[in-house]
């Protein structure tokens, strides 16, 4: 298979009557999905090849048809998160320069505000079959464009080729052993690299994908139970909630899954242990990657020895750690491989982030003697306390084990004597009565003295990106 379009074509030929996609309202067979995609593609023939088509949809079959229809026609799907602010939407549209912006009915009011005479704006229901689609994408063509979440700086446009995606999907399938027998539950946005990768995987092997619009644990449980699901992909916080005390029936419902996959630079070890205990024969796995270099490592948690690692490099991917322009045992993670983009959209940010095919991730890592990668934090996030470099994640991990805390962020705070000290922002759980002294006492017991926060501030929530990630840099 050379392009993402081939994933669908192959599975359609092999399993035409099999259910491909299940969403809240409908089930689509591979045959129906293929027809819908062909019809959609034909509509886009009026635009030149490689035109950008912006898509704003919830997780629905409409999104899947629009996305696959766009890339099958040789156009580029610009994927917009539904939680995007109007300001960021305008910023992305201005950068992506689409020929068409398409949305579901419920999001049309957002795109209606785009002021442009050359950009067409349509609802999904307004797209009609025009003629047969005679265009095909090439492996080197861009398939989709995602703007990174901007947790450390302004968003960057990341264009992914079909070739990038085929390489990544093949790695996912091989490493995590996906097959046509799988039934995959997906409570993740398809506009994000993690969720989209799961869609590609499902299409590649011809499995059934159950997509959820929102992350509601009872609904996730219903899908697993009602469809005898075999895999679940979710972010760590969802999995932590699932194994928390609030869901007594989680053991019964999850026990038959063969795989739970997440993505994180830090997956709480307690959650991993609880999930492993629940699964009868299944595996718990994570991966490390960026939109620019999807699924660069995989970690299958077979034992408890490497529980804080994000695993080893995927096949065909090289990693190195760089500090002061030299390879080092601890340093910035650089990635090279067919999953890595060649350049950023509009060439912006390319020079500073890509070097001879190596992507500079800005993540700090270390690799142990067995070749396992550990992510320590972000290069820019280090706190320098009297010359001692402190990773905020180390402090955050210590504090997160306390009951009554939803999330915590450690940032540097200027200090006359020490240069910088640690300031902690804490979001308490609902009805939590944990105090600042409880947190400090716990830190004194579990951290070196210089790492103990010098100030704690309780917050209602954190500034977040359109994808819901915390904008750490705004707290500094």
């Amino acid at each position: 298979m050379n392009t993402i379009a081939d994933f669908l074509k192959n599975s359609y030929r092999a399993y035409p009557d099999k259910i491909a996609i299940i969403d809240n309202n409908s089930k689509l067979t591979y045959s129906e999905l293929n027809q819908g995609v062909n019809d959609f593609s034909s509509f886009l023939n009026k635009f030149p090849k490689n035109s950008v088509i912006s898509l704003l949809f919830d997780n629905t079959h409409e999104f899947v048809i629009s996305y696959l229809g766009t890339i099958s026609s040789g156009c580029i799907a610009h994927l917009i998160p539904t939680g995007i602010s109007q300001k960021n939407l305008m910023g992305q549209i201005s950068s992506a320069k689409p020929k068409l912006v398409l949305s579901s009915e419920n999001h049309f009011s957002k795109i209606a505000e785009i002021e442009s005479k050359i950009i067409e704006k349509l609802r999904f229901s307004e797209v009609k079959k025009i003629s047969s689609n005679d265009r095909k994408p090439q492996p080197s063509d861009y398939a989709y464009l995602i703007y990174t979440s901007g947790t450390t700086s302004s968003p960057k446009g990341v264009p992914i080729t079909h070739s990038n995606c085929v390489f990544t999907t093949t790695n996912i399938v091989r490493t995590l052993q996906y097959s046509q027998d799988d039934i995959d539950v997906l409570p993740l946005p398809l506009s994000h690299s993690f969720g989209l990768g799961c869609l590609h995987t499902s299409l590649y092997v011809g499995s059934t994908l159950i997509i959820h619009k929102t992350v509601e644990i009872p609904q996730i449980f219903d899908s697993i139970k009602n469809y005898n699901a075999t895999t679940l992909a979710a972010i760590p916080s969802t999995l932590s909630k699932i194994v928390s005390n609030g869901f007594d029936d989680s053991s019964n419902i999850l026990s038959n899954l063969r795989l739970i996959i997440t993505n994180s630079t830090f997956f709480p070890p307690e959650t991993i242990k609880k999930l492993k205990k629940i699964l009868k024969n299944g595996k718990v796995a994570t991966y490390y990657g960026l939109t620019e270099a999807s699924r660069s490592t995989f970690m299958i948690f077979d034992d408890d020895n490497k529980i804080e690692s994000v695993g080893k490099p995927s096949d065909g991917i090289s990693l190195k750690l760089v500090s002061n322009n030299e390879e080092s045992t601890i340093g910035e993670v650089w990635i090279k491989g067919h999953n890595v983009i060649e350049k950023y959209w509009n060439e912006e940010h390319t020079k500073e982030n890509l070097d001879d095919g190596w992507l500079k991730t800005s993540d700090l890592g270390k690799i142990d003697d067995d070749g396992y990668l550990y992510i320590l934090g972000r290069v820019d996030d280090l706190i320098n306390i009297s010359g001692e470099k402190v990773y905020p994640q180390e402090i955050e991990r210590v504090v997160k084990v306390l009951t009554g805390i939803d999330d915590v962020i450690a940032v540097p705070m200027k200090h006359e004597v020490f240069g910088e000290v640690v300031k902690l922002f804490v979001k308490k759980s609902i009805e939590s009565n944990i105090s600042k002294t409880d947190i400090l006492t716990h830190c004194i017991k579990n951290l070196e003295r210089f790492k103990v926060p010098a100030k704690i501030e309780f917050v209602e929530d954190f500034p977040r990106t359109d994808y819901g990630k915390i904008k750490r840099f705004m707290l500094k």
Partner: protein
Amino acid sequence: MVLDDDVKKIFLETFPALPESDFQWGKTQKDYEDWDSFAQLNLITLAEAKFEITFSDDEVTSISSAKNLLDRIKSHI
């Protein structure tokens, strides 16, 4: 006496290795092996969080015993 107990508790929490029987109000910073500048910062942070007060820089540098700390807290509440 409640305040005294609270301040003593802060002290013992800041210096977990200090047996309660060794605690003395008049013992000064130089009598403690591990009362360094970071321990001072921990002590002040804990006291400020507990009593919801803020010490001035001068106060911070003047606190060199449990009694000093108690007196400074009393002046704030």
